[in-house]
């Protein structure tokens, strides 16, 4: 009797909320990439950043560790041979810093110098192509805030398209937005709000699959990544 119940519970079509979502990796890729900080990995559904989905990272000020959270995962994806696309980064990228973290600079593609209207298109192409393990793009500035008006506004539709593109290409899409966008609805499967903390950053998981919002502090001092 217990054997039959166990078999039933193990059936792949059955989803149990306590375990989070298990995605069958398409094409041999795993469904998540570990983010490298165990305290955060425990709270992320699937144990890491979701591949084939959109992640929103919200913060008020740059420079509090928003990129450091992602760097170990980016290093892992580059090490597997997939590319990393950085679209319209706000500053110049220092190659030695990337090398120190373990990200292979030969696998980084930077798209710069285009007007803001082309950034979502470029992100969509990069996500859909399947060649990029992760696509990072920055949507900050007053124009970006106005664009997201309303639950079903233009910004929402655009992000939804990008979410579908990420699914098609099995890539991790990360969009960096201002913290004021936290009040708006978003189709991203994972939303993080970052607030600076004493030694690291305090991450509030505003939205995640299969679990309630939570708050966790990531301490960078323990990790040599910085």
């Amino acid at each position, binding site marked *: 009797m217990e054997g039959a119940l166990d078999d039933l519970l193990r059936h792949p079509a059955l989803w149990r909320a306590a375990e989070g979502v298990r995605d069958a990796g398409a094409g041999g890729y795993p469904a998540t990439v570990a983010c490298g900080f165990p305290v955060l990995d425990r709270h992320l559904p699937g144990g890491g950043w979701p591949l084939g989905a959109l992640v929103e990272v919200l913060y008020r000020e740059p420079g509090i560790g928003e990129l450091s959270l992602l760097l170990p995962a980016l290093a892992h994806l580059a090490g597997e041979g997939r590319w990393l696309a950085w679209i319209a980064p706000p500053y110049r990228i220092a190659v030695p810093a990337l090398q120190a973290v373990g990200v292979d600079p030969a696998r*980084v593609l930077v798209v710069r110098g285009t007007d803001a209207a082309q950034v979502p298109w470029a992100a969509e192409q990069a996500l859909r192509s399947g060649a990029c393990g992760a696509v990072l793009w920055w949507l900050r500035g007053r124009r970006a805030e106005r664009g997201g008006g309303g639950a079903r506004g233009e910004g929402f539709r655009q992000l939804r398209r990008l979410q579908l593109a990420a699914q098609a290409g099995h890539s991790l899409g990360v969009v960096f937005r201002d913290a004021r966008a936290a009040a708006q609805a978003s189709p991203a499967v994972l939303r993080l709000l970052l607030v600076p903390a004493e030694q690291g950053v305090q991450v509030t998981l505003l939205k995640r699959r299969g679990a309630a919002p939570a708050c966790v502090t990531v301490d960078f001092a323990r990790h040599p990544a910085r």
Partner: protein
Amino acid sequence: MKSQVATLGPGSAQPSAGAPAASVAGEPVGVHATTRSWLALEFPGLSLAALGVASADAPRAVSAHHGRRAHVLAANEAARAVGVAPGMDVTAATAVCPALRVHGHDPQAEAAALQGLACWALGYTSQVSLQPPRGVVMEIGASLRLFGGLGPLLRALEEDLRAMGHEVRRGIAPTPTAAWLFARAAASTPVHGVDRLADSVARIPVACLDLPPAVKGDLQALGSRTLGDCMRLPRDGLGRRFGGELLALLDRALGRSPDPRACFVPPPCFERRMDLAVESVDRGLLLEAARRLIHELSGFLRARASGACAVELELAHRGVPATRVVLELVSPCSDAQRLLALVGERVEHLPLHHEVCYLGLRVHRLQELHPHTGDLCAPRGRGPEGVLQAHECGHRAQRLVERLGARLGADAVRVLESVADHRPERSSAEIPWHLAAGRRGEPPRPSPGAPVWLLPRPRPLQGGRNPASVDGPLHVEHGPWRIESGWWDGEDVARDYYVARSTRGTRYWLFRECREPRHWYLHGIFA
């Protein structure tokens, strides 16, 4: 089992079993190469296509002059639907169709278009010869194996021709002259083997021959409406009455005399131009014209076993300098679909302020194309699937880079390069991807806790012994690290770097100059 001889030469006749019955003076069939199969293509609408009006919605026709009278040489589909037919008098044609626009015949444009088609045909076989004014004859016997048979080859040809928008009549026969006659007569059933050739040639009407109209009229007056009738006439009488031309044609068609054809040699570089029917900014028309040019380019590249590394598209305007667009390719390519995708991407988002009168395509750099070989031992891989993934990824990355470059401009897509320099602003560079090929970066240098983000130029800060605020009071956490370098190129720096944290939580990378004036600067942000 028939024994077939494959030598050329008029004298040595070898009767084979099943020799054709119809032969003017009972001569046995001459020597022929039986493994050869010729395909002839006639393009009745070539004069229209050369002017760019073949696929126009309005009825259009091209007229040629014969003395003082002008007759219609070719009419497009819209005109034929209304009742205009080639050969009609122009006045009659305009009476039938008042909306008809008649263009003068441009033999030079037609010849250039025929050369372009011959370039395209070189993608299917190495032996192509021109049959002016509107035909191409190609030897396909040697290509049948590569394409997997006659059916697939013909399907591929038809698909290409449909994409280019050409009307075509084809004929297949063991000799080029017979194939051309079949094409003219629109007898598209392939004929293999010389024994069946005579019967099929006999059915061709005399009107399809390339002879002066007077000769054709005399033949028809004699009662010979088909070539079979001509062949039944006595040979020497026919030669005396109509000259040796007709006899020579029959001999060549039936394979009795050799029919050497000059092979078409492609020009050393590909530079073609396509006129537009109407000067416009309609991107559909531009893409249509670009599609034909790209198919021709693809054939040209395949004939030379090379790929294009960069392609230039020229959109000419009247009175204004032309718009030139250069498309860079990651790897040399001869595939029409890939080139078309890139050109389409670019043309769709090109700002066009003036009307375009013609479209030109040029290849900038050719490179020999090596057939692709897989790599069994990939440096990064997790096993057999890992190898496949690394390889697939490379292809997809190439396509992505090309697409992004096609739409955003080749300089917008960059890769990172590290330079051997201690000065942080010099040690990394972002260079456009098409300039980065083949450049190897320097090995990593140890950097004292440098951040990922660097400001384009160090921003000066106020401050004396301690830095003043950036966006709030600063608290210096770590430091100093000294970097002194660059005395040899005039940009000498001597700096002490510190990591500071503001009250709002942001961590900055600052430096203070070691020499007078000892200013503070903000150089980077820790992300």
